[in-house]
């Protein structure tokens, strides 16, 4: 996005000095505000992740080591984790360590949390990215297609079939779909591997399980949005220009239906990032989702803390990207906000 879409005031050279010119540019104002919001959210997230270990009733170290652990071992572990320091000191130390990439050490394996996450993150991220790509590739053409087919109350049967099927399928959570897929394509047909991450074929079932529901949900949103855009004056202008239908739909209708599509798309992507936790556990996928469940069960709190933080940051980054894309797609909203 260039400044070409900034309002005229910023491009008239007279009366605006170098400094105020920047400050008046709505893009600059928007970016500064949005980044400030990100920083606040990050601060809250880090604080909550830090507090997690303190919110647990009782002594987390005692809980982790078990009731029979000798008292001096518990005390030594508390000391090494810094749990005996005043809470403010602990907080400052925690934040400082985070800045140098140190998220603590696993209580069960003794391996650095950042190292474990570094090993597990690619598996989870590749799963989420693939699934999101599938959602986008399927839902946008499907939603537009359904909007065009059912516009102006046409094809009531197709509309009813699409809305009810998508509502029912989208209501089934990903891990149950995953179990169904394991049964049909793994156990019965034996087409795809049902556990582990080896080769492209191992991606098929987890990606399908993760993407079907969001894809249908998204297609519904695209359809409803596209239907409302289809009734607007500028679509009539596009038709008056005698453009081929695909051009009307993809160049004029779709970009104007993007606002809600992007908003919902962002929510879906955040949900899918976390949805990988369940799907990974169905398919024994060696990602962060498997690790977080194992470490919650083992009461390995530093590791849980680290992974929660990574998921949280991922969600915040998705929100940031969505907001930036919204600003590019609909420059009016940016300027209004600024």
């Amino acid at each position: 996005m260039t400044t070409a879409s900034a309002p005229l005031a910023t491009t008239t050279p007279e009366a605006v000095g170098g400094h105020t010119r920047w400050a008046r540019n709505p893009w600059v104002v928007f970016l500064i505000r949005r980044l400030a919001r990100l920083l606040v959210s990050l601060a809250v997230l880090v604080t909550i992740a830090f507090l997690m270990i303190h919110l647990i009733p009782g002594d987390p170290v005692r809980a982790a080591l078990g009731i029979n652990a000798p008292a001096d071992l518990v005390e030594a572990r508390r000391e090494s984790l810094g749990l005996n320091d005043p809470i403010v000191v602990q907080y400052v130390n925690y934040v400082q360590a985070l800045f140098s990439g140190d998220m603590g050490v696993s209580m069960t394996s003794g391996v650095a949390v950042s190292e474990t996450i570094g090993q597990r993150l690619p598996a989870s991220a590749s799963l989420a990215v693939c699934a999101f790509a599938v959602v986008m590739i399927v839902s946008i053409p499907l939603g537009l297609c359904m909007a065009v087919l059912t516009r102006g109350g046409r094809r009531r049967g197709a509309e009813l079939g699409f809305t009810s099927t998508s509502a029912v399928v989208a209501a089934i959570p990903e891990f149950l779909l995953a179990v169904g897929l394991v049964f049909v394509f793994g156990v019965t047909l034996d087409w795809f591997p049902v556990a582990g991450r080896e080769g492209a074929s191992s991606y098929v079932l987890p990606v399908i399980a993760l993407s079907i529901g969001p894809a249908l949900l998204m297609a519904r949103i695209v359809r409803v949005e596209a239907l409302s855009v289809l009734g607007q004056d500028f679509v009539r202008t596009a038709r008056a220009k005698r453009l081929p239908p695909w051009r009307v739909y993809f160049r004029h209708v779709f970009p104007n239906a993007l606002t809600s599509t992007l908003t919902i798309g962002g929510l879906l992507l955040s949900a899918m990032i976390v949805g990988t936790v369940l799907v990974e556990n169905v398919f024994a996928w060696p990602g962060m989702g498997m690790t977080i469940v194992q470490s919650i069960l083992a009461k390995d709190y530093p590791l849980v803390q680290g992974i929660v933080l990574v998921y949280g940051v991922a969600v915040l980054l998705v929100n940031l990207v969505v907001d930036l894309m919204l600003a590019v797609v609909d420059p009016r909203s940016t300027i209004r906000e600024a």
Partner: protein
Amino acid sequence: MRLEHWRSALKSPVGGVAATLLVAFAVLAVIAPIIWGDAAEETDPAALSLGSSPEHLLGTDALGRDIALRVLVATRFSLGLALLATSISVTIGIILGVLPAVLGRRAGRLVVAVVNLAVAFPALLLALFFAVVFGIGSHGAVLAIGAAGAPSFARLVQTNVASVSGRDYVSAARVAGVSRIRLVVRHLLPNIGEPLVVNATVMAGTALLAFAGLSFLGLGVQPPSYDWGRLLGEGLDRIYLNPAAALAPGVAVVLAGLAFTLMGEAIAQVVGIRTGIFRIPQRMPDPAAQAESGRDDDAVLVVEDLRVAFPSADGQTEPVDGVSLTIQRGETVGIVGESGSGKSLTALALAKLTPENAAVSATRLDFTGESLLGRSDAEVRRLLGTSLAMVFQDPMTSFNPSMRVGWQIAEVARALEGRGRREALDRAVDRLRKVHMPVPERRARQYPHEFSGGMRQRAMIGMGLMSTPALIIADEPTTALDVTVQRQVLRLLRDVQRDSGAAVVLISHDIAVVSQMCQRIVVMYAGRIVEELPVDRLASAAHPYTRALLGSVPDMTTDRERPLATIPGRPPDPVSRPTGCAFAPRCEFADAQCGDVPVLTAVGVEHQRAACWHPREEPLPVVADAEIGGRV
């Protein structure tokens, strides 16, 4: 939520299915543990991990317990935990939701900010976090799922409270000194009950699924207790040996979750407003009449008996009721009439741009000698693409807001003539210059919202000039503009016509505007043409409606002490159009004969036709020298 709402929710097919399912689950939840509770706990060392058999329909688990019985018995625990978690979500949600209305401004904003931040995170992440804090097990999981669902419910309550709290009765209560808490309990919550009930129902389904998820991961219900999620997790380990052990609890979870979701949807549909859309069959043109009518080579456009109908509550209405019109090459024709006379719809029908639900028919529709009737969309696009340009009424909404103006203009050349990007854009800039756009190179790179109304309308005309139009249809091109800009746009249209030789159809409710621009004027009333005359014959207009229109135009000599002349009565609604002459109820000359529809017949000397039983013959002196503001 009124009783009849519930009743009609249950009567809809979706609601009926959902309610039946819910009742079945409720019955199971009550009786299954009583009847089969002990049998489901019974271990059988002789039958460990078996598949389906007559004694054990869905097989047995690792301790030899019957899976079918365990799935049935688990209904109570699964549903109970889900409902408990939901009630926690709803309670916390309502409290957080109404807090901003109860607290002061600052504290209220803080609560809103906290909820907004929490909503940004997916519920499952919150549930995992709280599961760590509250501990593993059913207690911890209920609290975790309850807490995780609270932010989204709180957001819902906040939005609804905000929308209601501006209403009059709330303001009145506030002025009357009702305490904040009482205001919330008595005035706010009861009025947002419906969306809350709907969402709480849907949320129960979500909680059920989330609980199954946590139990499946081993973070929820712990042995020896069991719910569907736990059974599913145990079953998945042995899915190759006995698929039913994993599938049965999965199906139970899906069914119960769907029952709640569908119930919510059914209630939402009943509470919301349903809009039905009617379809009417497309009328086919009469091929015989088409073949009969000859060709008129000088005409750009010939249309005969054009009708446009829309479905309405009782049958259909015909806002355009048999319009016949011929436009010669290079001619400027004005179509005038009051709002609702069908003039804009006529223009859209001529350009084949009517809305989806309109039924258009005509016995003849020829454009530059080619019939448009019965052609495919692609053929119509080919025929009209480069030779018919449209200028619409509202320049504010007629441009795509997300596309730069230059690209929208260039698109015509790119899509229809296959020009390159650079070449098309250059031509667009050239056309913008032609319509007197200052700094066209920069303007082409801007978005529509950076243009003024007049500039957009000029850009729209420029867009029509991208190819060589034989006809420009301008539908109220100046209505949305202020007077000085109106004049510029009309002058531009005239220049464009002079340079390009295109015919122009100018549609307007303003006979003064039309008389400045056009050679010929067509007057429409209630979907029909009532008079057609050359502009220099305006002074001897024959139809009483045309005369009334002319009489209502003020000019420099109008006595400003007297009220402006108006036409008494209102134009008829197309639904209840009078039989016969539609203007008769407002006409001072009407008599019994006007009960029949008059046809257009020649009156006066040349090219003047009127549809009137009592055409006027005396000249209109006022109009004769009313050069209404001078010609543009």
